[in-house]
């Protein structure tokens, strides 16, 4: 079975632009979470989606938004890009729902560089 996939692998944008990152979860997983990892730090939680509904949001500005589609894939959108948005964006999938102890499985990430 394929793991979590993310696209694109790398992306270069300029300040003020917007970006869309995509994630496909492991087959059978209904929960998708997004994390931002700045160089030298641990990942920071941005969003969690389950069954197409937002179930959690981290401490990120409204420029960040996401959605989940009926096939459980997800998009992360960032508007009005700032230099500080340069980071590795990680997507993770888990079973979600009533499972009390869900292991998260991460994709390879999208490296976003804002110039």
């Amino acid at each position, binding site marked *: 079975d394929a793991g979590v996939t993310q696209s694109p692998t790398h992306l270069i944008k300029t300040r003020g632009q917007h970006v869309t990152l995509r994630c496909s979860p492991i087959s059978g997983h209904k929960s998708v979470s997004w994390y931002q990892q700045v160089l030298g730090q641990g*990942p920071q939680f941005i969003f969690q989606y389950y069954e197409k509904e937002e179930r959690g949001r981290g401490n990120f500005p409204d420029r960040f938004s996401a959605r989940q589609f009926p096939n459980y894939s997800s998009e992360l959108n960032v508007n009005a890009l700032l230099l500080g948005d340069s980071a590795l964006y990680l997507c993770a999938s888990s079973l979600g729902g009533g499972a009390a102890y869900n292991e998260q499985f991460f994709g390879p990430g999208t490296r976003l560089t804002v110039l």
Partner: protein
Amino acid sequence: SQQGEEDPQALSIQEGENATMNCSYKTSINNLQWYRQNSGRGLVHLILIRSNEREKHSGRLRVTLDTSKKSSSLLITASRAADTASYFCATDRSNAGKSTFGDGTTLTVKP
């Protein structure tokens, strides 16, 4: 601020030695997970330990959890050069999917 903190920040050992990394956190948790990351790529899930568990093993990995001290440790026995990576602990207060990570321990295993 991050919930978890790993200690030490960096660790350098010889192949064959054991490596121990520690993680402390601040609030009550549902579970704690350890991950490995190679060269800024995606995280590889190593072990999940539940809040009602005290120890868990997986191959050369041993994880302990002390909820009274709000701490966990990851032991890698008989280390190999391929174990060179950054190791992160992540805590979940509810179910997984909203994890809080520390800043990791960078492990270097010299051949």
